């Protein structure tokens, strides 16, 4: 693998030029990366997502001093509502201060290096790279090993952030296959409220591989909404990891929407690390062409009286492939846990496929847990019902799929984002609103 040789050299360069508090993290992670390598399909967690195939191609990091990708380029790919939002931009995996704008009070944004030295040093030391405890693979290690241009975002204790935070992960693949590793550590302070929207954009016709890791701590009584919107080009590959640790009575609401892309793997980990936490995880994937979508989720109930609710829905057509893997751990202390999980899939073609696997590991005896998954085709009875009312077959199918998606779409509480996603879905369904 040409990229691996390249990475070894890059690591030496990086360690030589950037010292600081984080180099020990890098060194440990590089050792792990060298040992683990890129996961093969023999790795159970990567059985259906053959990330090695992507890595057979040559990828490299890209430095941009701001001369190639400009603010004007950014304007063209902004999400609706961006003008009012706080905007954080990662360009080729590195935070770009010139392209980013904070508009709300209560947010502090620092380079991770800086945060690791100042008032937040203890927080960084405790919580940075915690996702690796759950994701013991070379991809996760690679993010930390080549740490560069990462950010720390602090949402001030008690602050209700008045505008959402939009995070753009941009890969400029106009010249060569680019490897981007956006990395962030976020602290949502006690009793704070924030809405985060994350999206991925590749420009250019070469390939991108985005290995993004966001680690977040939602502190006592804090409320976080997190939306991941994936609608990139077919030459865009990504492993997108969101690792959220919740403490006392905090609340998380996560919605993952995946449309176009090449190979897309999402890891969403929720660690419910104090009593009375509540977490809701919703996902909708709607793939066509040869897009591969893999949603791996983990809910780790560590402490008692927590609630987690998870619903992922998928529609796959053409030769698209899907994977859903939902793990729920209930640790011995986590009595009175309520954990629900459901994954429903509709296959619209003979060549689309999905592998779905719920996994429950329960070590406490007074809990309520459920899981279920379905894979099916569009309901012929329902289709006939609509047709018998004069609605043509194509339109009837659209209406049924729209109905299937609607309970996920309505979980998007940010109006401009919801309208945007609904528009994309309607477009895909060729659904003209009257």
């Amino acid at each position: 693998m040409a990229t691996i040789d390249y990475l070894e050299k890059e690591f030496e360069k990086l360690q030589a030029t950037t010292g600081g508090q984080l180099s020990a993290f890098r060194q440990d992670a590089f050792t792990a990366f060298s040992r683990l390598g890129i996961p093969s399909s023999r790795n159970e967690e990567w059985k259906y997502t053959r990330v090695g195939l992507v890595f057979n191609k040559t990828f490299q990091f890209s430095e941009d001093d701001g001369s190639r990708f400009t603010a004007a380029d950014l304007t063209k790919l902004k999400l609706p509502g961006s003008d009012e939002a706080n905007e954080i931009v990662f360009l080729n995996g590195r935070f770009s201060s010139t392209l980013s704008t904070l508009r709300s009070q209560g947010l502090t944004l620092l380079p991770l290096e800086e945060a690791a030295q100042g008032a937040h040093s203890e927080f960084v030391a405790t919580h940075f790279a915690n996702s690796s405890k759950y994701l013991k693979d070379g991809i996760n290690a690679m993010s930390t090993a080549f740490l560069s241009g990462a950010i720390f975002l602090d949402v001030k204790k008690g602050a209700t952030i008045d505008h959402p935070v939009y995070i753009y992960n941009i890969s400029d693949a106009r010249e060569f296959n680019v490897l981007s590793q956006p990395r962030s550590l976020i602290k949502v302070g006690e009793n704070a409220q924030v809405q985060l929207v994350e999206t991925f954009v590749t420009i250019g016709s070469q390939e991108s591989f985005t290995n993004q890791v966001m680690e977040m701590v939602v502190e006592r009584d804090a409320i976080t909404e997190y939306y991941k919107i994936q609608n990139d080009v077919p030459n865009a590959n990504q492993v997108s990891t969101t690792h959220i640790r919740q403490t006392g009575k905090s609340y998380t609401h996560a919605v993952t929407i995946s449309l176009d892309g090449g190979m897309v793997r999402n890891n969403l980990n929720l660690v419910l690390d104090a009593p009375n936490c509540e977490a809701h995880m919703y996902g909708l994937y709607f793939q066509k062409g040869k897009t591969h979508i893999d949603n791996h989720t983990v809910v780790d109930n560590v402490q008692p009286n927590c609630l987690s609710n998870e619903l992922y829905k998928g529609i796959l057509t053409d030769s698209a492939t899907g994977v859903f893997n939902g793990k729920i751990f209930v640790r011995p202390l986590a009595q009175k846990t309520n954990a629900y999980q459901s994954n429903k899939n509709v296959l619209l073609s003979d060549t689309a496929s999905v592998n779905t696997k719920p996994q429950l590991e329960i070590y406490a005896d007074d809990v309520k847990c459920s899981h279920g998954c379905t894979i099916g085709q569009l309901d012929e009875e329902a289709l006939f019902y609509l047709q018998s009312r004069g609605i043509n077959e194509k339109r009837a199918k659209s209406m049924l799929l729209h109905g299937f998606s609607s309970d996920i779409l309505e979980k998007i509480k940010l109006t401009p984002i919801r309208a945007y996603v609904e528009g994309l879905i309607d477009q895909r369904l060729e659904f003209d609103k009257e």
Partner: protein
Amino acid sequence: MLKIQNLHAGIEGKKILNGINLEIRPGEVHAIMGPNGSGKSTLASVLAGRKEFEVSNGTVEFLGKDLLDLSPEARAGEGLFLAFQYPIEIPGLSTTNFIKTAVNEVRKYRGQDTLDAVGFLKLMKEKMALMNMDQSLLSRPLNEGFSGGEKKRNEIFQMAMLQPKLAILDETDSGLDIDAIRIVANGVNKLATQDTAVLVVTHYQRLLDYIVPDFVHVLYKGRIVKSGPKELALELEERGYDFIKNETNVTEEV
């Protein structure tokens, strides 16, 4: 209006209808009765165009057109309506949106202007009053969590909205108490005109107390074995279907 000749149909190689002949003219109400498994619901499904059923022989003419040649949606456009025995629940699709789409698709088919929001609302209010429908039902997902009576009422409400020429009621009375039957039947009667016709498919006579048929046909083993005036329904109710079976056996022996 509807002319069925020698209709044979089945599903997955199993023959269910074995030569149905039936003619319905505008203004008429026909009832098809028969024991379980006689093919009543199959006939309703074949007429509405459910594609699992294969027609192996015979013709069906509807308002001068070859009905069997039309897609289910075209049949609705031409003016055929099937009230389902088991209306389908569709989560995520609001009843109002569904009906609005249906009404406008049918209007397009018939060469009429589509209704705007105001026009649609006016029509809907009018037909809701006719069916004693509660507004709240219509903002809910289609049939989801509706009671049996609400589902059937919703079927007749859709019929009122789509203004068909021929309405086929497939065991609309099944699972309904007498009050619900009265409301549903009342709706159907109010919609009947000189130009429209109704085909009531039922196992029991009691619906026919409220939707009074001009003709009653008895379906048995996929054929109409006896036709008569509305009194035939009463006779069936009294004597059961056995006497029909016995008569049929006699004719088969001859």
